[in-house]
């Protein structure tokens, strides 16, 4: 109302002064707010970027460490198992063999043959542990059934799998990675969950393939998984995360609404199918 009543010169002067001062104050305030806000946003983005880089670094580290672990295991197997076996064969087939009687010679050759067979079996086992032949030849379904059969054989836990729609197989690299993820999940379940059963199901929609593991022991929720994954100890979970990420898939850890079961769902895009 003051502005409307400003009819004499003094009042107009006040209006002009206050109006100008007020407008300038508002303008400066707005500019300062924008600068501060933008700085905050940029620093936040930079922090996020740094965190992402750190996480990627951790993933890379985990992947390198797991590769190194695998190499060390193979090296140890070769050195500790295949090495002594072949050394023993060498002992049986030494230069003195020709100076011995025929019966001893035959016995030595027979023993060497036995040890060579054992070595072949050992190397085959090592090779199978790297790429399961069932997986390569018959696919994920057979490999999972094979793995579950072995688990059932131990008698400590009941394991079952049901593939509802797996007529078309996944691409080999997907099958191998998914199998490794399933192996890790099943191992974790056996080691940590104290569950009495593990049940795996496979389903398919128009866009995704779902592989779900249920168990009745102690499990993880998504938050716990993400928290554990980011700790230096969560090597297996990091591997799961990086494998799933490379496959452009998703993994979800949940507790059943009935609080009885834990479930882990892997969502794979349909493009991964052959």
């Amino acid at each position, binding site marked *: 109302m003051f502005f409307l009543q400003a009819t004499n*010169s003094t009042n107009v002067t006040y209006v002009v002064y206050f109006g100008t001062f007020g407008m300038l104050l508002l303008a400066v305030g707005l500019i300062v707010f924008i600068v501060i806000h*933008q700085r905050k946003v940029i620093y936040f983005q930079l922090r996020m970027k740094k965190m992402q880089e750190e996480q990627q670094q951790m993933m890379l580290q985990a992947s390198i460490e797991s590769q190194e672990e695998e190499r060390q295991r193979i090296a140890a197997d070769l050195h500790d198992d295949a090495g002594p076996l072949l050394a023993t064969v060498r002992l049986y087939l030494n230069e003195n063999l020709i100076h011995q009687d025929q019966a001893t010679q035959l016995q030595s050759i027979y023993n060497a043959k036995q040890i060579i067979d054992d070595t072949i079996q050992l190397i085959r086992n090592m090779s199978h542990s790297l790429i399961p032949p069932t997986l390569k030849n018959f696919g994920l379904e057979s490999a999972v059934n094979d793995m579950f059969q072995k688990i059932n054989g131990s008698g400590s836990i009941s394991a079952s799998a049901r593939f509802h729609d797996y007529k078309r197989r996944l691409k080999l690299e997907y099958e191998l990675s998914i199998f490794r993820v399933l192996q890790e999940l099943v191992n974790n379940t056996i080691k940590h969950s104290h569950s009495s059963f593990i049940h795996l199901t496979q389903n398919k929609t128009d866009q995704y393939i779902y592989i779900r593991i249920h168990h009745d022991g102690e499990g993880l929720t998504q938050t716990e998984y993400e928290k554990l994954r980011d700790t230096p100890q969560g090597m297996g979970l990091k591997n799961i995360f990086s494998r799933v990420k490379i496959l452009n898939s998703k993994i979800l850890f949940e507790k059943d609404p009935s609080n009885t079961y834990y479930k882990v769902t892997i969502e794979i895009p349909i493009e991964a199918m052959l």
Partner: protein
Amino acid sequence: MLIPILAFFLNKGNKQLYFKKIILLFFILKLVNEVINNYFYYRLYNVYVLNGIVFSYLKMVLICMIYKSIASTTLLRKGALIGLFIYASALTMYLIFFADGNYYDKIPSSFQGILLITLSILFFYEQIKKPETVFIYALPEFWYVTAVFLHAAGTFFIYIFAKFWLQDATNENDYNNIHGILTIIYNLMIGFAVWKQYRDPFLKTTTTSKPITA
């Protein structure tokens, strides 16, 4: 007024930038406008028509071109074009139906002020919305818009009330002081904007061309 022109020629890089060229053109036009105004004013001619009709339109066309060229979204680009159209229509209506040819009638300038404040707010809004990694004050266009925004906001009231307020000759000094200070700040800041190169204080790098993100 010479500061931005000098800054343009003293600036070793970024002369190729379109908006800086328009700023140069704008200030040359403004300089010509002032010279002509003063020439006619001291010879007691009424400069209202020349000032109000010819230069107001031309200057606003150039300012809207500057805003259009520094816009990174269609919002500001459209805003500049629509704003110019509305301003031109409002100014034409005012000049035809309401203007009395008084030298102190600064209402057309307050129309400009409204448009400039709106365009500046649109510019700041699009800068806030932009997923940007370059600090806003590292951009020359920020300094240009800040200068225009402060000047438009500061002179808004004195322009609206000029005709009435300046009836009393004692107020003319105050008017000149406020207007003069704001114009000096405006020219200095625009000079700085014209002189400034794209330099991100965080990345400590200087580029001679406009960054893709800006």
